[in-house]
């Protein structure tokens, strides 16, 4: 039985002429134990998809089954309980409460579960130890580095022992060292049997995934299984297409990426092997972004 089953899920914002389609009839099935990387340009609907899977947002149309339960039309409190018990969410901007200490932040989901103070603290402590921040338990978020903040956020996401961990660009605000740390934590979580879904812009990070989903314009363009430790094939194409990292380059890279993906879309039947040299041509000065 699939853990997540999305069927023709759409999300529209605004109405009338200003209607904006963030998700366009997306269908996606994710099995228990998968580690899915979601890639795609900005505005492609990745975050919206994450928010809907994470029950932070509700779809405009379509069905969503989480486990054996249809959750697309649940009331707010039911959704809150489902979030609390089944889902751990990790945000790009950490989203810790600035006025609470690390351990209090981690213990927050347990509070809403109705756990006693002593148990909460014990569990939160264990979780902080697990992410390597036992010695920072009583620090406030502002006293922690980005990587440490994200580790606290991961501890918070894990503290309820959820089946599903969703991370929306968990490394988006982090330097490469912290990114690696965070990704290693996530992959460790995956190894203990959790289902992990994460959004990333960095093709290298697909090495941690067992499956890579590419999105564009609110639809899933491509969906492939990969082996752990390997960069996804599509990701590789994208990776080689992305040059070094000044901001201008980044922008150029994004349009390049669009080009590549567009060409793929134009000639999907022409065979993927044939498409690959084209991508190389499009970016003659190819470099690896990261190790």
């Amino acid at each position: 039985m699939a853990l997540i089953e999305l069927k023709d899920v759409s999300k529209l914002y605004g109405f009338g002429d200003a209607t904006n389609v963030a998700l366009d009839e997306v269908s996606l099935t994710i099995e228990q134990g998968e580690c899915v990387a979601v890639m795609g340009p900005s505005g492609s609907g990745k975050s919206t998809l994450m928010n809907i899977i994470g029950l932070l947002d509700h779809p405009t149309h379509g069905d969503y089954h989480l486990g054996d339960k249809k959750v697309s039309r649940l009331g707010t409190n039911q959704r809150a309980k489902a979030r609390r018990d089944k889902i751990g969410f990790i945000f790009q901007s950490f989203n810790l409460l600035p006025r609470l200490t690390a351990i209090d932040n981690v213990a927050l989901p347990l509070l809403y579960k109705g756990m006693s103070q002593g148990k909460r603290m014990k569990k939160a402590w264990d979780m902080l130890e697990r992410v390597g921040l036992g010695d920072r338990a009583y620090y406030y978020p502002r006293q922690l580095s980005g990587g440490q903040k994200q580790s606290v956020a991961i501890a918070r996401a894990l503290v309820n022992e959820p089946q599903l961990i969703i991370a929306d660009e968990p490394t988006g605000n982090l330097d490469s060292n912290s990114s690696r740390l965070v990704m290693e934590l996530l992959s460790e979580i995956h190894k203990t049997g959790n289902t992990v879904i994460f959004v990333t812009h960095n093709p290298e990070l697909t090495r941690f995934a067992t499956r890579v989903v590419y999105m564009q314009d609110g639809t899933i363009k491509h969906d492939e299984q990969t082996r752990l430790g390997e960069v996804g094939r599509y990701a590789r194409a994208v990776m080689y297409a992305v040059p070094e990292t000044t901001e201008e380059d980044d922008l150029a890279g994004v349009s390049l990426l669009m080009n590549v993906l567009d060409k793929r879309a134009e000639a999907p039947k022409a065979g993927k092997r044939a498409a690959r040299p084209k991508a190389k041509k499009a970016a003659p000065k190819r470099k690896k972004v990261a190790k």
Partner: protein
Amino acid sequence: MSLRRENLRLAYRSLQAAKARSFLTMLGIVIGVTAVILVVCIGQGVKQQIANTLGRYGKDVFVVQPGQSHGGGGFFTGMAGASSSLLTQQDLRTVQKASGVASVAPLSTASGSMTGDYTVASPFIIATTPDFADIVQQHMLSGGFFEQSDDGKAVVLGMSVAQKLFNDSSAVGQTLAWRGRQLMVAGVFDDFKAPPLSVEANFNNAVFVPYDMAQKATGNPLGIYQILAKTQSKGGSAKTLGAVDTALVTAHGGARDAIVAPASSAQSASDQTIHLLTLLVAGAAIIALIVGGVGIMDVMLVSVTERMYEIGLRKAIGATNHQIMRQFVVEAFVLSAWGAFIGLLLSCITVGLLRAYTSLQPVLIWQALLFAPLIAVSVGMFFGSMPALKAARKDPIEALRHD
């Protein structure tokens, strides 16, 4: 139960974590509560002070004073009339004999310095008869009023003049020298809460001497500036006043040159004043309440809006609407209750200081002390939790974007 204690503990923690915001919110409530209580208490105090100044005599007391009646001439306006012509002892007897009159007391002034332990050069001396005490019904601080049997040697002092003549020592039983006579202090009046309008005519400054003795001492008949009288029936009938008026007109050969008026005519005027003052205080209290309430509302709304992000985040990690509401209700309650309590304390202290250091005499009104905090707490809780409920009903992602 433990859940509730837990909630309180958490509320304290969260309020402590945001000290500045909590302080400002609380300040709004403190000011609201203090404003309402102070306005009501000061207003009530002023009202009582004015009521005391206006004076209250029994309904059966009426006054006769020289002068033409011009419309609704009050009790004390007669002081001006004292300068023109005065009433005589003959008039006193006429009033006394009129049907329905129980007792009369003349009020005359006399002059001459008085010496007790200290000398007062020009005391305010009122010559009257023993019935004065019965009519005025003023409480004595010590001793008693002089009697007919005192041989005209006993005098009674107002509180202030007793202080001037004998300083702190007890005046009763001491002797006084006035116009070569040795007089004995029979008693000292308690504070006249209802003094006449001028400082001189303040009974607290007056030395009350027996009329007959004063007449002998000064050597000429003492004109009477006012006759205080009391009717037999408790009600103070118009009939008695009419009879007195007729008797006086007859005695004066048809000229109506004396005014007979119930002492309570002054009272009805003051009743009107006090009624208006009551309305004023109530109006001011309502305005203060609205201003305070709006202030509390503003502060609460702002602080909740500021916390949209927090609400979104708490929901994102699994808080139900109910749990969010409970958190905000408890926090709003803790803040409002502390604010109201501090406001209560602050206003009590301010009332005390005002009483001690200014001429204002605010009084603590229990209704204000009860309702101002109650209303502040309800307003605070309502506006502290309603926006939170609104925020909690949204999808968490919407509230999260709200930063």
